[in-house]
């Protein structure tokens, strides 16, 4: 497992911000993007009304060409799960393409205010 970005605190005003590119270690097969959500225990994170669209791109040739890869979009505020607990993070996960010289980069597009959160990119 490798954490390309490990709970990096982010503060993104309305607009777009890029992250990376980062090199994906050879042999790893799965990537997960995580963004910390507002909960009762973390009331300063990701306010209601702030929406984020997180996109990623993957390169198989060291960053010359890029394919759109996984992503998610979500509104802010507290999101209650089926068991009554708060949703701790928004996340998305998928397989990585095989190969070497792989790189990944992200773009977060924020609307409705400033996004305050923590970003994690994990590959296993």
């Amino acid at each position: 497992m490798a954490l390309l970005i490990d709970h990096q605190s982010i503060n993104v005003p309305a607009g777009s911000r890029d992250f990376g590119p980062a090199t994906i270690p050879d042999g790893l097969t799965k990537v997960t993007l995580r963004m910390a959500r507002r909960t009762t225990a973390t009331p300063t994170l990701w306010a209601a009304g702030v929406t984020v669209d997180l996109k990623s791109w993957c390169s198989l040739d060291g960053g010359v060409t890029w394919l759109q890869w996984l992503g998610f979009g979500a509104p802010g505020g507290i999101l209650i799960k089926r068991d009554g607990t708060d949703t701790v993070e928004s996340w998305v996960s998928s397989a990585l393409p095989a190969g070497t010289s792989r790189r990944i980069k992200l773009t977060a597009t924020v609307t409705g205010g400033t996004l305050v959160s923590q970003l994690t990119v994990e590959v296993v």
Partner: protein
Amino acid sequence: MAIAYDNSNTITGGGAATVTIPAFAVAGANRLLFVTVGSSAGGGAVLTTSVVRDSGGLNESCTEVWDLTNGDTFHSSGHLFVAPATGSYAILITLSAAQDEIGACATSWTAAHQSVPIGTPVTGSSNGGSANPTLTVSDAADDDVVIDGVHVYDATIAAGADQTQRANLVIDAAVTHGCSTQLGSIAGDVMSWTGGSTPSWAAGAVAIKPAAEEVPYIGYGTPRDHSGCKPWSSIWRPARA
């Protein structure tokens, strides 16, 4: 030519209202794209708003085949696009609200019928009942391929014996999205999944129809289909005297 599997990709996620299935290559003749989506949430399941390949570019907006909830927290939908462009493009799935668990599987196919690509969809659901997901696609012909999508409140499920599992995505440890296919020649045309120890689920299935066989012209006389050909009189005219 029989319908043939081409390629696929999957996604899992949570705490989100949209997810993007990573790009994967689509190629071949008489192409068809089929996307199954499942979601669940404590605040109640929602429906799928749209499924678009290469959003903002080609904007290949898929047609909804089925979209249902189990009346509580589980949701399943299926979506189709005929003749997707060749190449590698991502697929954007938009739900009507954020969900706790999301799973999706996109598969591409060749040799699919381009004007009547599917039969009549079949759906089913359970809200804490006792039955595992089981759907019968009664209009499936022998040359068809039946595809299903299930979203189940269970972390361990398995497709029926004659089915080919295309996705078995465990999401958040307690919810699974599954997609499988089966040849239409299998007797009964039943699509089933086992293992639902807490059988809350929503599911759908439909038969994908094969492209029409091309009948080669053999022999003498007039070919059967001469539409599009110019009459001889428009091509050859005798010289005027």
